[in-house]
């Protein structure tokens, strides 16, 4: 173990490397892989749900009906002003005590959806409001009707503007899904905990969890970068 990538290792203490147990990591890889997939699907479900909830909440928030706008406002404010952990514990411990029972994964997805949905709502709202009213007037003036304006002027730009912050929120959501380990869902963080408690190897366990999160992060970051490149024409 004297060389790594063909370069002598001089910065890392060899004592640390000798105690760092790669063999155990390989032994636990199947567990990490299945938990990685669990994190992926819990996050994907949460992302999809929060996009729907967020778009709906945004639509209500900017609607003309005061009551609906108020309800959406209360939802968004109360989610944004309280910790996700408290929300999660409320759904997991609180709801059953009120008579609502759900599986752990459903509880986890519900918490991620409602939490992230509040942030998504604000992102979508910013996207729609970023389109200048002048463009809409120009489109009205040339005889385009409401659906044509939505289809050709507003939506293409709103989606373009919101994509980078939406992907940013998706990254936050994936990292927040770590909290689901606290309601005994077998996801990436939980895998690290299992390895730690079974072999007492917290360094190996949590570092491996972190590496898998890093993979998801880079995929989403790549998408963000790609979506921003497509927006270059918007920069003045």
């Amino acid at each position, binding site marked *: 173990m004297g060389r790594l990538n063909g370069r002598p290792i001089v910065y890392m203490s060899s004592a640390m490397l000798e105690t760092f147990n790669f063999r155990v990591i390989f032994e636990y890889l199947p567990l990490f892989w299945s938990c990685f997939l669990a994190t992926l699907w819990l996050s994907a479900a949460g992302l999809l749900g929060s996009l729907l909830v967020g778009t709906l909440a945004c639509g209500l928030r900017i609607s003309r009906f005061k009551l609906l706008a108020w309800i959406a406002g209360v939802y968004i404010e109360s989610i944004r002003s309280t910790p996700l952990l408290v929300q999660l514990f409320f759904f997991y411990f609180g709801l059953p005590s009120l008579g609502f029972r759900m599986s752990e994964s459903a509880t986890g997805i519900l918490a991620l959806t409602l939490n992230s949905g509040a942030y998504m709502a604000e992102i979508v709202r910013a996207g729609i409001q970023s389109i*200048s009213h*002048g*463009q809409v*007037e*120009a*489109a*009205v*003036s*040339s*005889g*385009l*009707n409401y659906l*044509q304006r939505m289809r*050709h*002027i507003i939506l*293409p*730009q709103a989606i*373009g503007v919101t994509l980078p912050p939406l992907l940013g929120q998706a990254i936050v959501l994936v990292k927040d899904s770590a909290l689901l380990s606290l309601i005994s869902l077998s996801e990436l963080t939980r895998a690290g905990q299992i390895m730690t408690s079974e072999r007492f190897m917290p360094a190996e366990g949590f570092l491996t969890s972190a590496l898998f999160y890093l993979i998801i992060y880079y995929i989403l970051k790549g998408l963000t970068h790609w979506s921003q490149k497509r927006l270059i*024409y*918007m*920069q*003045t």
Partner: protein
Amino acid sequence: MIEFRDVHKWFGELHVLKGINLKVDPAEVLVVCGPSGSGKSTLIRCINRLEPIQKGALIVDTMKVHESKTNMTRLRAEIGFVFQQFNLYPHMTALQNVTLAPMKVRKTAKKEAEDQGRYVLEKVGLGDKLHQYPAQLSGGQQQRVAIARGLCMRPKIMLFDEPTSALDPEMINEVLEVMRNLAREGMTMIVVTHEMGFAREVAHRVAFMDFGELMEIAPPREFFAHPKSERTKLFLSKILTH
């Protein structure tokens, strides 16, 4: 072509148009000037009902704009509108900006719309900018695309709302030149502007608005040499000496 009969307009409590009477003939170029807040922008925005009027009659190309059942989409296709802030669609190239409405509203085939778009953009001196996005163009170029966008609908009337006010001084002339050519070709135009040189040279009549009223309307020679009202005199002395 355009006729205002005792037109009134309120924004809430604010009375912005106070009984406007005005007739614009086909192929006439009318320049409207006046201090800011006098209602001149509102006046032309009423013509294609970007602003609805509350009282009076407004007839454009035989259509009754004051009646809510009038099909405005059809009328708006006949009226080009050029804004102070250009209001181009930033996610579309110059050519896409000018072909969208012909294709969607007039149902022109794409090929034909693009041929016409190219021709009109060339006419406003932007033949080499067809595939540029608005952000890649200067203010003067953007405003010329905006004029081309209006012209591609083959409108009967062109309305200009302070088309040069947002431009740097060196770009004003390229836009005015396009408008001069348009007037020469016999387009019916109403132009809200402070460019008094343009008014003198191109307009058939010049109108002065103040406090929501048309104070004075006359051919440019008469308007500039012998303004009748005191307020017109004061206004002209302010903008002609600066």
